[in-house]
């Protein structure tokens, strides 16, 4: 048996910010190396923008009249398609299955940064996903009534919505540790995306669909984003968009972080 003395303690707690940046850096590197996950996710909203405008523009504009701009109306829908459901939840499942999550849990890392770091990477990615859709919108003739600043607010709303929605995917990933369940999380997106004003304005919606749209946070999200393009600085619509995002975010984050606590608790 040895008699050599033990070296002084080298490790110390890195602190919340350092933990957060460490997890986020890794997630961003992973994202950059994983083009196969980004390119299809970007193709879908661009495709829908082009197809929806091509197939419905004449019909909707003809029925509504009064110079209604369907291209401007559709742009926020495509952006929401681009940013909703973008998350590192799939990677988180792989970390759980491969044991890398355990490696992280063996360190003195602040547990909440395991999710928050991934969310920072998600936020960066949804901003990146938004830009090509906006550029395509500008190319086909959409302009922002609120100018460049409005465009930035538009991106901010889209990004916070995308971030708010990630909580659901993380909750499923942490609860199940199952990649199939995470892939199926996109089903949650359907009621948000289609029981709303995706194709026609709220005034034109009647019956159960109109009622559903009234209670769908995405309706207020789209209204706020459309106001930035079509109306101007409508503080009520923009405020409601942020509020709708905050409500969805508070629900999904509560789910995600309570599931994280359950996962990291030494059960």
């Amino acid at each position, binding site marked *: 048996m*040895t008699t050599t003395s033990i070296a002084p303690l080298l490790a110390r707690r*890195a602190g919340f910010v350092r933990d957060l940046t460490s997890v986020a850096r890794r997630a961003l590197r992973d994202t950059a190396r994983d083009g196969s996950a980004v390119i299809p996710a970007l193709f879908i909203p661009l495709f829908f923008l082009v197809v929806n405008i091509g197939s419905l523009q004449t019909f909707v504009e003809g029925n509504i009249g009064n110079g209604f701009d369907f291209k401007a109306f559709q742009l926020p829908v495509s952006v929401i398609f681009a940013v909703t459901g973008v998350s590192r939840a799939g990677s988180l499942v792989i970390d759980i299955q491969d*044991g890398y999550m355990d*490696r992280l849990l*063996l*360190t003195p890392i602040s547990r909440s940064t395991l999710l928050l770091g991934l969310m920072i990477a998600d936020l960066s990615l949804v901003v990146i996903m938004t830009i090509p859709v906006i550029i395509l919108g500008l190319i086909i003739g959409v302009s922002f009534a609120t100018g460049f600043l409005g465009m930035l607010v538009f991106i901010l709303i889209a990004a916070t919505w995308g971030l708010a929605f990630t909580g659901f995917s993380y909750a499923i990933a942490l609860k199940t540790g199952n990649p199939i369940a995470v892939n199926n999380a996109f089903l949650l997106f359907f009621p948000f995306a289609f029981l709303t004003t995706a194709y026609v304005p709220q005034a034109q919606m009647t019956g159960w669909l109109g009622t559903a749209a009234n209670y769908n946070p995405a309706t207020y999200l789209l209204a706020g984003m459309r106001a930035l393009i079509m109306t101007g600085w409508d503080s009520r619509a923009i405020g409601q968009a942020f509020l709708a995002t905050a409500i969805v975010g508070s629900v999904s984050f509560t789910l995600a972080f309570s599931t994280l606590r359950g996962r990291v608790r030494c059960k």
Partner: protein
Amino acid sequence: MTFAITATQLVRTFDSNRAVDGIDLAITSGEIYGFLGPNGAGKSTVVRMLTTLLNPTSGTATVAGFDVQKQTQDVRLRIGVALQEVALDPKQTGREILDMQGRLYGLNSARRKERINDLIELIDIGDAVDDLVSTYSGGMKRRLDLAAALVHKPEVLFLDEPTTGLDPVSRAKVWHEVSRLNTEMGMTIFLTTQYLEEADKLAHRVGIIARGRLVAQGTPTDLKRSIGADVILARISRDDTDKALFALRSLSGLDHIEAKGDSIVIGVANGSVSLSPIAVALSNAGVHVLELTMRTPTLDDVFLETTGTRMQEVATT
């Protein structure tokens, strides 16, 4: 004497399964402790409890002087762990993984660089450290996993079956490094293994675990000596087993007699003295001896003595 690891009546149940059933440990600082047992014996569950990944159902444990349930962060700062399954991110390079580990343990940039350079040399990974882990061989991944556990120079290193799946050359390298970490850095090492040779070669003391219970503990030499200084193995016809046992039990000076398949395992204090009387006794009893050999006891003999089965048999049941 300071203890690096202690455990008192450590129990862990999963539903009705009592995976760990009242383990007591007292491992001194600077010791290599080999935790030997077959698959499913409870080794990994003990490691997960000692490394704060799993709470005990009952009992207490300390690592580096800190309670594993109440002072988890203090424990985590002082331990390094290489779990049974290599825990690496295949989309990162080896350097990125080591760097992230260093960051999470609060090492500054200069210290991280220094440690990573030391570890690259230690694990003999060369320029591959800048390649993605997905391109590594199994041995390289295992060595990188070990390096990740060492970034912060832990006081206590837990190695859960560190050589499982490695080729003999890589296994020898890991053994060499484990010994070196212990002798040069004074690191306490808790090593689980199902390889008898590994425990025998590396560990200062060995604990044998079977079905969640610690059934024997001591230095490899003492454990082996406990069943006799030598083992005589008589291979006979199965039909002669009862006759052979009857004949041998009438002889004095035999420490242990056990029938296993077509063999009789006999533990004796002095093999060269006992060999001849055993041969004569078997011959006089009309036992047809196919082979009579003498060897020194192994830890598997100790396992057999304490559990009634051989490790290999438990592993396959």
